[in-house]
């Protein structure tokens, strides 16, 4: 607890002893010179502009896009470049073969952040596309005969531990917006974002495994806020 100065009163015509005066003033100066604390300072006395940068919280913003391999669908009558003759619908994205058939998680993004002890709020957002119609089974023509609903879910891991599981997304276009807050110790921590696409079916392996994009994401942002204890 900081020193609280009690005012002394000097009567008229008193002779004040130097040591007595020094003691009183030194106590005050001792408090002023680095001894003030919560007992002296009123509520809300520290305004935002008086706070040194990154002394209350620290944020990182990491904006990124999918940088790994993407492939076009291998349909012979798709247009294959910008110079196509008739407007078509060629797709481009991640093949099953590029994500182990959906058997494992695939890393989307990873970032490291130096934390102070406190809370770490992690936000991940991106846009995604799922080839949810997958009518390509009917490669022989005529009516499409098979339909396979696909989905994807996301995970956020902190130092390898799952701290967030998303729901499964089934719409062909959607925005992923995930947020969680976890306690962290002082030091460097790794935030990892992964997705897990629906497992390839037996039919998938025989027909689309290595020739049809089934998923893609882009516009990812990892936003972390470390709020200090």
């Amino acid at each position, binding site marked *: 607890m900081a020193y609280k100065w009690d005012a002394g009163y000097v009567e008229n015509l008193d002779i004040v002893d130097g040591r007595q005066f020094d003691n009183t003033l030194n106590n005050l100066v001792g408090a002023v010179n680095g001894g003030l604390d919560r007992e002296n300072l009123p509520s809300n006395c520290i305004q935002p502009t008086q706070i040194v940068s990154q002394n209350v919280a620290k944020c990182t*913003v990491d904006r990124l896009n999918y940088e790994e391999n993407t492939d076009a669908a291998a349909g012979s009558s798709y247009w294959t470049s910008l110079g196509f003759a008739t407007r078509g619908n060629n797709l481009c994205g991640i093949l099953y073969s590029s994500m182990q058939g959906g058997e494992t998680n695939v890393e989307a993004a990873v970032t490291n952040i130096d934390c102070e002890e406190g809370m770490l709020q992690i936000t991940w957002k991106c846009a995604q596309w799922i080839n949810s119609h997958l009518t390509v089974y009917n490669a022989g023509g005529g009516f499409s005969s098979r339909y396979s609903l696909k989905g994807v879910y996301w995970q956020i891991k902190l130092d390898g531990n799952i701290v967030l599981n998303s729901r499964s997304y089934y719409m062909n276009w959607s925005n992923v917006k995930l947020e969680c807050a976890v306690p962290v110790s002082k030091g460097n921590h790794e935030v990892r974002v992964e997705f897990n696409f629906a497992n390839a079916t037996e039919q998938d392996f025989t027909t689309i495994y290595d020739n049809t994009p089934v998923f893609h994401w882009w516009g990812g942002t990892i*936003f972390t806020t470390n709020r200090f204890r």
Partner: protein
Amino acid sequence: MSRATITNFYPDNPVIDSVELNNQYGQVQTATALINEQNVRFEGVDTRQIATNPVLVFGKQFTNDYKLTLGSAPAAGALYLAKADPAWPYGVNVSEIPINHNSSGTKTAIIGNGTKFNMAASTGIPILVGDIIRIDLDIHAWSIQEQIAGITDSPLGTMAAAARAQLVNGIGGQTALTYGGNYGSGMGEWCSLIYPKVNITNGLGNDANYVSLGTAFNIVGAPEFGNLIGESGGANPPSDSFFNLRDDFDNAMVLPIHHMSPANNTSRVAFMPYYEGHRNTTYADFNFDMPPLREAASIIFVANANVTLYSIQLYYSGIWRLACDSSTSPDTPLLYLEGQPCDPTNNDFGVSTGVFLEECRYGLQILRRV
């Protein structure tokens, strides 16, 4: 410097006058008037000493407040057209429309209505380099537009069931005119884009002053969707109208339209709009009873310019389509603004449905010193 430096009188114990004494008091006065980290004990401050929102410079939510009562249908002003719609009234050089229907569902350009709001009266908010800006937007998509007059825009239109089924088929793509093979435009590669634009000029709310986030805050590579105007029909989209999805896509929200699975017989197609706010009896023998869709996204970035942010407005940018440039290695995923309706009879293989939007809102947070 905020330390008080005093000179003790002991042990000299001199006879002093007011100057020496006042010097001592003056030191204390100076120090206590400039209290800083040299005066406060290590870890001597609690959160209660810190003013509310020490790092949050601004935080507020805005909404057009258009909320339909149960059983009612959206007003015409809540409809946002696709550029490929023959009714597109904005000209070939315009590709985006401000989301500006107010709480009554009427389009208006008056600031304070629709999604066009001044952030802090008309004085704006000074943004500094390094500020973190977070915009959370969410859209209540009520329904997709139904039959467009004059064309068989919807695959559920007047087209024969077999032809509709062929349209769904994702293999092929362009010569569905004869419906004779594995052709069709497929479904599911289209979406709408919704994104904010900002006014850093003044608080008057003139639509011409709203610019993209990338332009306003100097974000290198950020998309300028409004500049990618595509083609209004018939022709192929020009090469400069493609947006490379490997570029910075972080400033937009995608909104799905509909979903279509293969048709397995001649009388039914498995078409499903993702949102259909009322019981839809327009599509021939199909009654869709889908609920409206609330879609949300966050846009988070670091400002790289000192500007004054006056106002934000959301924009709807038609229907965009997934595409690919396979002349590159690896193949490059692209988006382009769809410019054709779905009318295979006339060799058009796009989609031009508009969407009805209900409540559209966004929140703005500005963080500093983080």
